[in-house]
């Protein structure tokens, strides 16, 4: 048992690093969306230097705590590889109609089978960061084609996990996916980024009625 764990150590370290990186991306991504889509008033956000650019992060403690709790759990799921998708749904506060779904597909990349003991080539962090930067910029730019919200909105974060996933029953509950009806939905694929272990593909679907 112990020897088995030891042999896996280098791999698991890189998994952990990758999970942290992905979690951090979600934190800034979600903040970016909440700010630019006006879910929370802009006064609540402060500028922070991250990924070589300024990003906006909420300073509303309640929201900060809320996101922290979610991201902590997400990190655990990422470590066990049990989360397949993360969705940030923006919902009209009064009618509870889903207006936008920001979908992030999480794929665990199988390392290519190597015959010799040589470690697989690692992706430089600078490259990953520049990919993340591009996604964040794309989130900002998607403001230009997304419809404006007339009414106040709230958000909800959904996690798609495998059946086998370990779920804290007190905190997470099964829910409906808050999908937008297929006929009224427009979908736009965003960029993706990948670490050595994970690949994140982003997409936004929005309600578009003529």
């Amino acid at each position, binding site marked *: 048992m112990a020897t088995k764990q030891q042999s896996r150590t280098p791999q698991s370290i890189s998994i952990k690093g990758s999970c942290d990186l992905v979690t951090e991306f979600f934190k800034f991504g979600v903040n970016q969306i909440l700010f630019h889509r006006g*879910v929370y008033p802009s006064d609540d956000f402060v500028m922070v230097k991250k990924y070589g650019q300024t990003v906006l992060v909420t300073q509303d403690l309640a929201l900060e*705590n809320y996101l922290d709790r979610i991201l902590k759990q997400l990190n655990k799921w990422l470590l066990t590889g049990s989360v397949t998708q993360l969705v940030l749904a923006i919902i009209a506060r009064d009618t509870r109609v889903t207006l936008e779904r920001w979908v992030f597909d999480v794929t665990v990349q199988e390392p290519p089978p190597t015959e010799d003991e040589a470690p697989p080539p690692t992706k430089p962090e600078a490259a990953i960061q520049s990919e993340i930067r591009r996604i964040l910029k794309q989130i900002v730019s998607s403001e230009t084609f997304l419809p404006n919200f007339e009414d106040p909105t709230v958000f909800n974060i959904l996690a798609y996990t495998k059946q086998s996933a370990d779920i804290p029953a007190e905190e997470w*509950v099964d829910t*409906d996916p808050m999908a937008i009806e297929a006929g009224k939905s427009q979908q736009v*694929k965003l960029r993706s980024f990948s670490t050595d272990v994970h690949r994140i593909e982003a997409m936004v679907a929005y309600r578009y009625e003529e």
Partner: protein
Amino acid sequence: MSSSSSSERPGNPVPKTPSRKRTLDSYDEARSKKRRRSSLHCGNVDETEPAPILDSTPKADSRDRFLPSLTTQLPFFPLHSSSPKSQRLARRFGLLDTRVLSYRDEPPHPLVIQAGSDPTLFTRLFCSQQLQSRTLSSLPPTYSAVKHAQVKPIRVLDTGYMHNEFHPHPCSWSSRNVIAAAIRGAIVTHEFETSRVEVLTDRGFAAQTLEWISSSTMAVGRENGFVQTLDIQKDLLTTIGYPWDTGSIWAPRAVDTVSFCPEGQLIAAGRQNGSVAYYDIRARSSIHCDKERPTDDAVTVKWNPDGRYLAVGHDSGVVRCMDIRTFKSFDLKPPDHKKAHKSPVTALAWAPWDTHILASGNEEAQGTIRLWSISGSESGHSTYTHLHSDRCLSEITSLQFSPHTKELLSTHGRYIPHSPSKSRQSRSTRRNSRSRDLLIEPIPTKHALVVHSYPSLKRVYMVPDAHGDAIVESVLSPDGTSIMTIGEDETLRIWAIWGKREEERQRSSLESFTLR
């Protein structure tokens, strides 16, 4: 082929192959080339290649987004939004192996600044609230109180020359919008609409506590142990309770608190000798007297809204609850304590929307709010559950449930640095120690009004330093939207805290239209 496409890319934006251009209509040229190239790679997509940016054609996304690793082109099939039966089928065939989960709590609501209110004041308050919450627990979602509450009192009344010696429950607000307060023995009434103030000359011994029992009649508890009803229109004083009802003549027996139950026309009076007496105002006599806790000052008594239970808060911190049908009392205890509280229970409140829910708070330096659920079976045996508790950093002097929303308001007295010996002091010595100058640290809930959410008791809204000194008592207005507080800074202040219930408003707007 790849060499030709790469040679095209740098210089020429104009396409060279017209036949291909016809098939690729809506993309700009650079992207169309990528697409073409990737199709020539026979599905072996380059990792570093960025995906197309604005690809709004539905055709491009025909791959199933719920099954991200699937490479074959499936028609879009919304697995999760389908019926339970098809979900079951899908699960059996292995199409649906994911669970959709969401976090239990709602995300915190953004603050909505109402058009009428002063935005600068509001944001300033919110900022200060946030600063305070850094040291306290987190401050979160908020509904009625934040929408409607105002940071300034809507009316301030001066209690003038009156000395700042108050008894725990000195005031009451009648259904006719008249506020009455027992201030240093005298009874002062204030008509809310006309702002007319009247001081009722006192006869006999000083009034300690009072409560309205109808639009013009109030029950008055006196220092000498008499319980009387006072009709202010007819100026008629009727004695219904005598000090000797409680049995002992020698113990101090001033009436500290009265509570009226409209169901049975009963008045409960808590006295300083620890007895709780029940009077029928029609018969003008005592029907029962509970003397099970001698010498333990009954500080607070409160009937529950349907008049079945009476909650009694004692000086020692004991909270008792009596079932009126059997006259049997039982003590409320949290699971790991012997008593409900460690110090005088000055605040008790029953929820108007759930007659089994009781909130209690104590006058300790670091007061605790506890929520209880009392349930009784038909056989007369009553049980209770301790629901929740929350510590505050100052004395809790009163609690009020909102009748319209699930929120609880607490008023706070001063903050006394915690020392174990002090918490065991009795009420009278504590009151004396107040007059001495204490080293008071700047603790946020000191002298504040705080609105908590039910049942989590999270702080929703706060008016810091509502009074210049400790708040003694609060009463709810007859319409349930305002709160009057009485403070040791010799003022009565009236605060708009809650709004009307949403359904009520909707119903009234519906009623204004008639259908033919």
